[in-house]
Structure formats: C-alpha cells, structure tokens
C-alpha cells in the first residue's frame, strides 16, 4: 500500500512517498474512506475540543495527543500566501503539534511546534497562533540542532498553556480491550481504508456489531472471545473516543486521482464496500468464490 510507505531518509523518491500517506491517511478519516465525498463527522462528542487557529503557508496540521487522538486538518487555500486553518484539539489534554509543508514534494518539511520552549500544549481555551512562517523547503528550514526537523518556537499566552512533566497514568476501563480491535479497524477505531471505522459509532451500534456475526465470520470468531462485560466495557470506551478526525477539511490537494490509494492492489474484482454487509443475512463470507 503505497500510502503507508514512510521513509525517513531525505531522498527525492522517499520524500515523495513519505508524504503520500499523510494526505491519503486523512482522506480516509471518518468512515469508509473509499469514496471521494466529504465524510461526515463522527457523532460522538463526549470529549470537548478547543480550536487552535492561525494561518500558514500550504500545510497539513496534525496533533498527537496523550488521550490517543490524532486530529489533523489541511489549511484552506484562499488565493493568498497565508492559508487559514482551524484544528480542534481535546480540552485539557497534552498534545504535540506538527506541521508539514509541501507535502508530497521534494521540498517537504516537517515542523514540530514548541510553545514557550515546551513541546506540549494543553489548552483550556481557544488559541490563535496568528501567522506561522513555516519553512517551505529544507533550504529554508532552521535546524540548529541538526535533528532533521525544522526548529520552531511559538509564543502563546501563558494562561492557556500548562505542562506537567510527570507521569500520572490512569488506566481507562475498556481501553486495553478496545485497543485489540485496532489491528483491523485502525488506531482508536479509525480505519485508513475500506473497512469500517469504529470511531464515531455509538455504544449500542458497537455492541450490536459484536453480537451479530457467526463464528464462521472473522468478526464473529473474534467477538466470541469476549464476555458480555468485556464487550460492554470496550464499547463504552470506543463510543467515547472523539476528537480524532472530526476536523478534517478537504481541498483540491487531496484529490484521490493524484494519490491513487490502491494503485498496486490489483483487486478490481473486490467489492470495496462495507465488508460486513450488516443488512444481508445471506451473505456468507466463507462461500467458495474460487474462479480456478
């Protein structure tokens, strides 16, 4: 899957490849991901978010948050050199923010922001970063510490940023069980391909899906491994995840014709729709479709 190739060496080829997954990964957010329409946002909003706004040169803005969410957004091309963006991050959660300029070109630059020297932002109220003059090519990047990432330090009001350099780990009920769903359904339930995202599904929907497949189906064969209480716990956790992909906005840079998601799969005969076909009780996934 070309979209998942990630190279860290800065060669022309590898930079091109490495950027493709960033774009297409986000194109797959929010559900099926296989169509070219804008996905609707997940309906679950139990975690409040707060907006980080600003303007940048053409950029993807991503956050990596300690609650496991990974909100991302593309800036909006508006005919100027300063493209506005709004990235919604979870309230009172530690997040790192990274920006990628010229994604998919030899001039791609990744910039991790720091805030008053801190790598982590923890917001209780909206934050306007104003214009961020990100480097647009490796030649422009200031990299005093030679770590391969552009240096950047953003000053923000101190009352909006907190930072605690301590570990206070609180296990979350259902999270470890739920994380074992992510191998097939994506981190935090966000699928990056044609399989269903769990993210955004309700508690009852998740429970229903865990219950409806026979053990001859791979989903049913997994589901029988979990007790009723375990199913309820993981469904409660999964239905409470939000902030992961509700912020994505499409623009012309994300045209799938430019980054063919499945160019090397050669699976023309494969039905890329929902693999589980909830409404088709006669659908036996194990039937012999051999054509030889």
């Amino acid at each position: 899957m070309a979209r998942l190739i990630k190279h860290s060496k800065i060669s022309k080829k590898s930079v091109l490849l490495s950027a493709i997954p960033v774009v297409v990964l986000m194109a797959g957010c929010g559900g099926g991901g296989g169509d070219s329409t804008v996905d609707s946002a997940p309906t679950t909003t139990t975690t409040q978010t707060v907006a980080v706004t600003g303007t940048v040169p053409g950029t993807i803005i991503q956050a990596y948050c300690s609650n496991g969410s990974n909100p991302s957004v593309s800036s909006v091309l508006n005919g100027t050199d300063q493209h506005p963006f709004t990235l919604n991050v979870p309230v009172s959660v530690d997040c790192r923010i990274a920006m990628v300029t010229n994604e998919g070109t030899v001039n791609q630059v990744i910039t991790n922001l720091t805030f008053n020297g801190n790598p982590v932002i923890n917001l209780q109220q909206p934050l306007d970063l104003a214009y961020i003059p990100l480097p647009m090519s490796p030649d422009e990047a200031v990299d005093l510490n030679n770590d391969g990432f552009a240096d950047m330090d953003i000053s923000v009001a101190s009352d909006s940023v907190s930072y605690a350099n301590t570990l206070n780990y609180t296990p979350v009920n259902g999270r470890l069980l739920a994380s074992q769903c992510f191998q097939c359904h994506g981190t935090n339930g966000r699928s990056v391909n044609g399989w269903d995202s769990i993210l955004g599904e309700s508690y009852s929907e998740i429970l229903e899906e865990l219950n409806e497949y026979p053990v001859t189906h791979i989903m049913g064969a997994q589901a029988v491994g979990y007790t009723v209480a375990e199913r309820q716990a993981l469904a409660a956790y999964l239905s409470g995840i939000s902030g992961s992909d509700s912020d994505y906005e499409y623009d012309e840079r994300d045209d799938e014709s430019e980054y063919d998601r499945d160019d090397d799969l050669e699976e023309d005969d494969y039905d890329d729709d929902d693999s589980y076909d909830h409404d088709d009780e006669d659908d036996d996934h194990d039937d012999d479709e051999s054509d030889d």
Partner: protein
Amino acid sequence: MKTKTLSTANFSRRSFLKSLGFGAATAIGLPAVMQNVSAAELPHIIVVGGGFAGATAAKYLQMWGGIGVQVTLIEPNENYVSPILSNLVLNGQKTIDSLTFGYQDHQNRGVRILHTSVSSIDKNNQTVALSNGQAFSYDRLILAPGIEFDFVAGHDENKVPHAWKAGVQTNLLKTQLDSLPAGGSFVLTIPAAPYRCPPGPYERACVVADQLNNVRGLGASVTVLDENPNFTVEAETFAAQFARYGIAYIPNARVTSVNSEAKSLTYSVNGGAEQMLSASVLNVIPNQKAGQIIFDAGLNSGNWAPVNPLNYESTLASNIYVIGDSQGTGQPKAGHIGNSEAKVCADAVLRSLSGLAPDPAPKTNSACYSPVSRTEATWLTAVYEFNASTGQMQLVSTENYPYASAPSTRNYGDMFNWAGNLFDDTFG
C-alpha cells in the same frame, strides 16, 4: 521514578549526539519536540526492535503515557519491511517498497529514534550499551528483537534464500523464481514449530505454485518438506490447496544439510535414512529461536524468553520485558499478535511506573489473512485469555483456531484492509 544516574544521565541531547559522532549530514531524526524535555527526569522506557511488536509498544507507550514518559526506540534499520504480504512480492502483486515503513510518525509523537544497535544489557544497573560504547539507563526495557535462525550445515542464505525476513531476501527469492525454467522445480522447507507466521510457508507454496504453473505455464514441480507431522494450521484448507496445485507434501522431514552451490539438500523423514533432493530454486526456512540479544542477556529458557503474560516481564530479570516473536508464552509468533502483546505490555509498563498492578485479565488476539493465489485468500484468527490458575495465556475457546472454510476473492480483498490497518496501527 528517576532514571538512574549514569555518566550519560545528564547529557544534553546535543552533546550526546556529538559524542555519538553524528554530524549534520547524518542527522538521525531526534524530534524537535524532545529538545526541552529533560531526559533525566522522566521515566525512561527503552524499546529495542522496531518491528510489529516493538513499534507498536513505542507508539502506545507515548500515546497513553503522554508527556510523562520518555520513550526511546532503538532499531538499527531506518525502515522496516513487513513480512506480512511479502509472499505477494514473489508473484508480482506487491513490491518491497510498498511494504516498507519508517518511523516518522513515531518521531512526531515524541518517540526518540536511535538507528543503532544494543551491544549489551546490564540488568543490575539497568543500562544498555550501544554498539558505539555509549550507555543509556532505563527504568523499563522492552525487547522485541524478533527471530534468529538455527544454522543448517552448508546453508548460505545469499544463494539459498529463506526470505523469512522481508526485503533483500524476498527480492532474491523472487529473482530466482523469475528465472525458473519450464519443467523446473521449486523446493520449500518448513521449520519445526514454533516459527514465525504459522500459515506463511503453506501460503507461499500455494502462491508460488499458482504463479509458476497457472500464470507462467511452466509445468514446474513444487515440493514442500515439512519438519512438522502435519500442516501446523488450517490443515484442511491447505491440504485442499496443495491437492489443487499438485504440490508434493512430505511431513516429518528434517533438513540435515544444504548444498548451496548445487541447490540441493539432504533430509530425513522420521529419523530415517538421509535422502537427497535437488531443485531449480531452493527455499530453505531454517528452524527459529529468539533474537540474539535474548541469549546474550541470559533471558532465554531453551530457545525462547519466558515471561509473565500479564505484563510480558521476563521471569529471569526484573524491569525487562520481552514481546513479539521472541517471547515464550506459547502464543503464536506473528505480526498481528506481536502488536497485540505490545499493547498489553505498554499498559502494564505504564501502570507499573505509577505503582499500579497490571490488568489482571488481559486478552490478546491473533489474525492472519493468507493469499493462496493471485486472487484468493484464507484467514485464521484466535483470542487468548489469561488463565490465573496456570499463569499462562490460553485460547478462549478450546477449539482449534477458527479459520475460513475456503479461500475466496472476498477474503483476498479483505486481506488488504486488514493489513493496511495493522500497518497503520503499528507504524502510523
């Protein structure tokens, strides 16, 4: 939880880099986000090995531990090539590039990546020495070194590939198969269980047979020497596929020597007299054991590392954990369950750093889709639970692994969705 004081404990990152001899031209990609975090004040977790288990552990430690931990991933290679789907390189359905992953997202999450290797582990002082002589202290050390091979007399993997670690080896086998002549022969050997990816060798035999004879029309013979007494998984499915392709299957066959120049081998069935077999293309997958670092650190019992499956901590050393193919819990050795074990381990490690006991009832899962042709695949899956009375992981069901009743094109498509999300959950 303080990192132990060492000569390196209070290094500035810059000076540490300099001491390692890294200049601007060889920037190793430590993320800028780390530059203001004092490594000496955070609990430091070192993960060794960036495959499915190690990469997942590093990702989830940082994701769940947040800013409260420093995670360092030590992996010699800048990229990882997935063995999963790599049999599709042999028939041209995939390329190595399309199965290659880096650690950029790990860096963005704040994981420190060191592309170097560990030369030794000091279990008492909780330090690891790197191959350049520098040392790191750790509060917790997670080892995910994968597998090593038992040597077979005469076996030169540069001439007779195993292709069981993907990348150069996969391409070498593909090149040899591409020049296999009409009427030629392909011989594949299967190691004794446990080995990495139980269905993988059977999958390979089917994919190659399909490619050689149904696509290229070579009329080639395919022979499989299996050291095990029967197909180790999906027996009915693979037996039917072998019959379909006319693959000769010889169980209980132990390889005793290889002539890498002549592409021949000797083998013994059930300890009987040695027999010789020659091939146009010979693919020897040797018997397997834990990564070398497990033996070097004295963490093995036999060929594998004994661990407590509640947290994957070694039963032979405290604060050292072993996940993935090297662990010896009896769970299968494969990428999907390596990812699964890593999450249990990451959660338990983070709990322990906060003084909490591990989850008393962890579950892991295993799944694998296997192509058996250029259009069809099969699957198997399993869920494991902790048995408090035995202290071991066991199948939730006492039945065998559930698996697909027959290969299908539907499964073939699902295989890419499964792998794509697994790749992203591990490396994304």
